[in-house]
């Protein structure tokens, strides 16, 4: 690769210890950059060899858990999903995600994001609670209906979109791209019947109205989700709802398991349900 970094790289890490520091400060460390090394690997190297007090969140190391969102060379990314070589620089500047309070070093306080997320009821809402507990069949949904919200289910709640959003940076009443995209994901799910409940929150200041469509949330999303699109689609849905030009559909009905089907002798029985 042409942008392969050979030799050492310098990590500029934004440090903050609330018990000791009045304000965040920058600390530099030099480590050897090895082929295939991620930014997270570099942080581990520094913690193991230079400064054991360095703090951050990480877990899966494969871009699935969403724990290691950080501001890396000016862009919100997952540290585990970012190779040092792809930065194209011998300096790796690492800071906590902006738009959140810092708990310590690279650990942001994501609780406002999750509070906003929970306030928009990000789950399937139906009246047949008993059926959800003890399903007698599947809720019918076509592949086309699935495609309407599928990409939004890939969200791992890492907070990169929230850190990149210029509106969330200034307006604390705005829910932000992640919670809004997830609300749209459930509003669009044909198995769901919770639009009216979510509308109570979305129709007010917490809703999508302050979004300028800067599109930064979609640009930085490490999972390729397009929250900006979800927010514009949500605006359209709510405008049509206000004008009485659109009505939420009834949640998908249950498709009972076929009764007249005989199992082929070479197909084994499924394991017993455990949940």
């Amino acid at each position, binding site marked *: 690769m042409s942008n392969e970094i050979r030799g050492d790289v310098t990590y500029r890490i934004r440090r903050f210890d609330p018990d000791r520091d009045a304000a965040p400060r920058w600390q530099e460390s030099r480590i050897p950059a090895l082929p295939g090394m991620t930014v997270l690997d570099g942080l581990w190297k520094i913690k193991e060899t230079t400064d054991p007090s360095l703090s951050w969140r990480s877990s899966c190391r494969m871009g699935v858990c969403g724990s290691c969102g950080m501001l890396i060379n000016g862009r919100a990314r997952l540290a585990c999903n970012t190779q040092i070589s792809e930065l194209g620089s011998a300096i790796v500047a690492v800071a906590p995600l902006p738009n959140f309070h810092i708990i310590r070093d690279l650990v942001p306080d994501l609780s406002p994001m999750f509070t906003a997320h929970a306030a928009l009821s990000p789950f399937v809402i139906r009246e047949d609670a008993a059926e959800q507990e003890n399903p007698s069949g599947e809720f019918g949904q076509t592949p086309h209906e699935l495609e309407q919200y599928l990409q939004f289910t890939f969200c791992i709640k890492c907070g990169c979109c929230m850190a990149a959003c210029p*509106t969330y940076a*200034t*307006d*604390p009443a705005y829910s932000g791209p992640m919670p809004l995209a997830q609300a749209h994901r459930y509003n669009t799910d044909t198995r769901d019947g919770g639009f009216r409940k979510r*509308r*109570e929150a*979305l*129709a*007010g*200041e917490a*809703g999508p*109205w*302050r979004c300028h469509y800067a599109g930064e949330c979609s640009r930085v999303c490490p999972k390729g989700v397009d929250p900006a699109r979800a927010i514009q689609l949500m*605006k359209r849905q*709510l*405008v049509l*709802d*206000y*004008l009485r030009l659109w009505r939420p559909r009834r949640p998908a009905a249950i498709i009972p398991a076929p009764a007249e089907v005989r199992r082929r002798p070479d197909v084994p029985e499924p394991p017993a349900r455990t949940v």
Partner: protein
Amino acid sequence: MMRDQKLWTWHVVAGLVVLVFLGLHMTIMHLDEVIPAASLNPQGGHPIDWANVAARGKTLFFPITYVVLLGAALFHGLYGFRNILFELNPPGALKRVLGWLLALAGLGLFAIGTWAAIAAHRVALLA
């Protein structure tokens, strides 16, 4: 609380109204040689010649469109301005004051503009 849903919807509707009536305005004022409609400039010459302005003002259609365009433009513009001000993250009490000030400014300007449109219609009828 549907307040923002309602305001945004009317913001979009007002934008569409502005688009249509501003299109009409541009057609009359700047495309008179491309679309020479006798009903828009009955006296010939330039669209803002007094004879043409008076001829258009005699009909009810034009004063009504002036008032509708004025209302739509004021609502669309002032709501957008309110959003910009709110992005500065003022405290809740100041937000309410700003909202009321902008609403009063909009109503005042709308009243003056409506009065001017009616007055122009009456002058045109006398011309």
